[in-house]
């Protein structure tokens, strides 16, 4: 499966990387968004793989990613 989708279903970022491909050739790929790290298999239902079918509640904006809280917070360096 050589055709990567145009954008991330979750955040619409346009760079997507192939993380894995099916041991049985040509069945599926595992893809990942380079920005929000969303990971999906190409054989998953449209609600998980297509931007137009992705639930609004789970969509992320660049601001959501940048402003996400740190858990746990990075502590101050001891000097």
């Amino acid at each position: 499966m050589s055709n990567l989708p145009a954008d991330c279903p979750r955040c619409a970022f346009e760079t997507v990387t192939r993380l894995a491909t099916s041991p049985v050739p040509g069945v599926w790929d595992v893809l990942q968004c380079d920005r929000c790290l969303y990971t999906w298999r190409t054989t998953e239902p449209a609600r998980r793989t297509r931007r137009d079918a992705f639930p609004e509640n789970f969509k992320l904006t660049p601001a959501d990613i940048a402003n996400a809280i740190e858990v746990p917070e990075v502590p101050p360096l001891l000097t």
Partner: protein
Amino acid sequence: MAYDDLRSFLDTLDKQGQLLRITDEVLPEPDLAAAANATGRIGENAPALYFDNVKGFTDARIAMNVHGSWANHALALGLPRNTPVKEQVEEFARRWDAFPVAPERREDAPWRENTQEGDDVDLFSVLPLFRLNDGDGGFYLDKAAVVSRDPEDPGHFGKQNVGTYRIQVIGANRLAFQPVPMHDVAQHLRKAEEKGEDLPIAITLGNDPVMAIVAGMPMAYDHSEYEMAGALRGAPAPIATAPLTGFDVPWGSEVVIEGVIESRKRQIEGPFGEFTGHYSGGRRMPVIRVDRVSFRTNPVFESLYIGMPWTECDYLVGPNTCVPLLKQLRAEFPEVKAVNAMYTHGLLVIISTAKRYGGFAKAVGMRAMTTPHGLGYVAQVILVDEDVDPFNLPQVMWAMSAKVNPKDDVVVIPNLSVVELAPAAQPAGITSKMIIDATTPVSPDGRGNFSTPAKDLPETAQWAARLQGMLAGRA
């Protein structure tokens, strides 16, 4: 009967009719998660599931719902499959008293059979990874036993922690990792990050059934999970030395992943459908670089469906959360009879207790909130009398409906600590907490009209046993 690895336990589940082999081809998504999700909806003695025909994979072996019923939980502890829940908790508490039981080190761990190192590490080639819930950010390792050491006291066996944490696979050799601040590994990470150092870590997958129970069990910081596993098994826990970190890991694991939590780095992780029945995340979480993977030939990938309760997670951590609270409360309040902390990992706890004097039950409730586990959970406590079974919810609801005068018996304390995952917390990590005292007031608390309770007839217990015997004989 102590199981040294997952495979021997799966054999027992199979023989006891508690393992369902699904041999028809299934899709990795949504079938694997949906089938495991369904085990929580078909009654409380659901079987474990075993898949070995998953579309696109050539040799995937996936076990789910291994602890996902009272029957399976009983078998994991070597008890008869039909042992009632209250008895499983009491037996668990009884075995606890044997703690600590020293582990047994073995050299011939089966996970030494295969190795990937450095740039050759590819988790996707070892594990048939898949997604659980629609909104999850990706594929998770959610039933691992994660081992880390205290960077300031690395030689202390008891401070070496074994815990279960959510882990998202974000690359062939990269993981995102959630250490909740209340948990031991977060203390290890803080100490390492204060010095600007990476924290070495070992993640073991597909463990023996008692290892999975102790890894999810609230234990004291310097108590060893391996020494508790020995007590619960009734035999020393078999351990082996992980080749890269030198950490002590279960001998019987299917897969041992080693690497480091990279110091002072955070990256987007989640969301993930959690034990609260709600998604949490995305948050900026620590990340792990995997440097070595060791695995049995044809490893079994064990995973756990988690989401809207009840799921396997609730059977797995329900009893092991009841017992430490029971022990810690009884240490100072021997009047405490039983503790049911099986709802959402103890966010709600039901305690049955005798009363020393008026107001005593409320004190027991406050103590539950200040136990080590209570600090991060125990947001609601219901106190019931000593003759009410806290595992019998109709009895508990009777006590609530008949004994509670809300103005006097409901206490709300603002702004206490709770896990950030608690959906009702505001802000995350802070919540009010509530005590509902559904015990009968005793002197000098002279409220209400409780002097003439109706009790079971003296002959009732005998008749109950007789009827149960007749029903069992009919089956």
